[in-house]
């Protein structure tokens, strides 16, 4: 490749250096180059929210960023929220409240809600509905997701 970019980025606390084609979408970089396949790709035009990641503390769509744009920055993906043995309270709440069925949408909900719960520790149901309005779920009907967020807020307080 003559047209390349030397990318250095911190993902879930680990720093990576990779040579990439500048047109690589961040979602593809995470999945293909770093093999972090927890970030899902649904629509690739910003509508579904499955690809949401946390960039410098804020949830954003990774399908609408070119990988070179995150050069020198810090990313947290769903893999960085917790482990199987040590889950984030929101992940525990998702399990307990049955907030997922197929699970395709779940990483996007989690990466949207973890920073949000830090800023909104005592949310109302209406606020929770607004907070998840940028993430589509085709299975649950959302009700159990709302329940899980309430449960997580209780756990975290």
């Amino acid at each position, binding site marked *: 490749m003559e*047209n390349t970019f030397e990318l250095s980025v911190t993902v879930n606390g680990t720093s990576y250096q990779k040579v990439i084609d*500048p047109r690589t979408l961040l979602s593809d970089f995470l999945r293909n180059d770093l093999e972090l396949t927890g970030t899902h790709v649904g629509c*690739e*035009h910003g509508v579904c929210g499955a690809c949401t990641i946390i*960039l410098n503390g804020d949830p954003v769509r990774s399908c*609408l960023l*070119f990988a070179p744009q995150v050069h020198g920055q810090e990313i947290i993906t769903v893999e960085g929220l917790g482990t199987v043995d040590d889950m984030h309270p929101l992940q525990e709440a998702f399990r307990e409240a049955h907030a997922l069925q197929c699970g395709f949408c779940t990483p996007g909900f989690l990466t949207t809600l973890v920073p*949000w719960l830090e800023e909104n520790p005592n949310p109302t149901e209406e606020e929770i509905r607004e*907070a998840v309005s*940028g993430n589509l779920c085709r299975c649950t009907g959302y009700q159990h997701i709302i329940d899980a967020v309430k449960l997580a807020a209780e756990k975290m307080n």
Partner: protein
Amino acid sequence: MKPAPFKYYAPQSVPEVLDLLNEYGYDAKVLAGGQSLVPMMNFRLVQPAVIVDINKIPELSYIEPHDKGVRLGAMVRHSQAEKDPLIKEHAPLIHETMPQIATVQIRNRGTIGGSLAHADSSAELVVVTTALDAKFKIQNQKGERLVPAAEFFVGLLTTSMESEDLLVEVQIPPMPAHSGWSLKEVARRPHDFALMGVAVILTLNKKDRCTEARMVYLSAGDGPISAPEAAKLLIGNEITPELITAAAEKAAADEIDPGSDIHATAEFRRHLANVLTRRALEEALQRAKGGN
């Protein structure tokens, strides 16, 4: 759904951006928040040979008082504007508009300058800055100019900027005393692009007569669509429920030009315009009279 190859530049200052735009002309695209450009590139609706990423330029993200109003650097993100106390105080219509634009993940990246430069006729900021008579500061290698909203938006996804131009600042003037404002819209789901919407600003004199009225519609034609004839029904009069009904009907029937698509027919959009204009005028009137 992958973008075509491009050369990537991430300049650190405005002069460097202007040099690149001058060099590459229509082959280059400015990349701001990327929330409109990247979807279009993913679909290969556009295939720029050169991307000029302006996210690395810190000096374009300011919000400052200006002539009793505010001015915003082009790279102010939607989420930054949404939370800003100066905007809340000096540009309440902008403050009220921000949460209605897209969802939080999009607002964390999307920029004021990008939304305006993109000039989508269903973008809230396009109609709101038109209603507010905002001014746009544009730079290129040769110099700088200040363009009023009415001359900035010139048609379908089109502004009066040329390929070598960079939008650097938006100036929002204050509303006159005794003014009220409102933005009403209907979308299929909250935060989707709206099927129809209207921004209203009303100004009254001390005797509660209307001295100025502006109604600007989104998703109602190729750009922001104003309704000057409907406004004429209001100006000079005390605003009554009957006048509000008449103005809403006039605007919806005669002044807007909405299209039909899979989401809504033109007829339904006119119906929405009528109802939303009534609600927006009522709210603006209340606020102009001092009731919040």
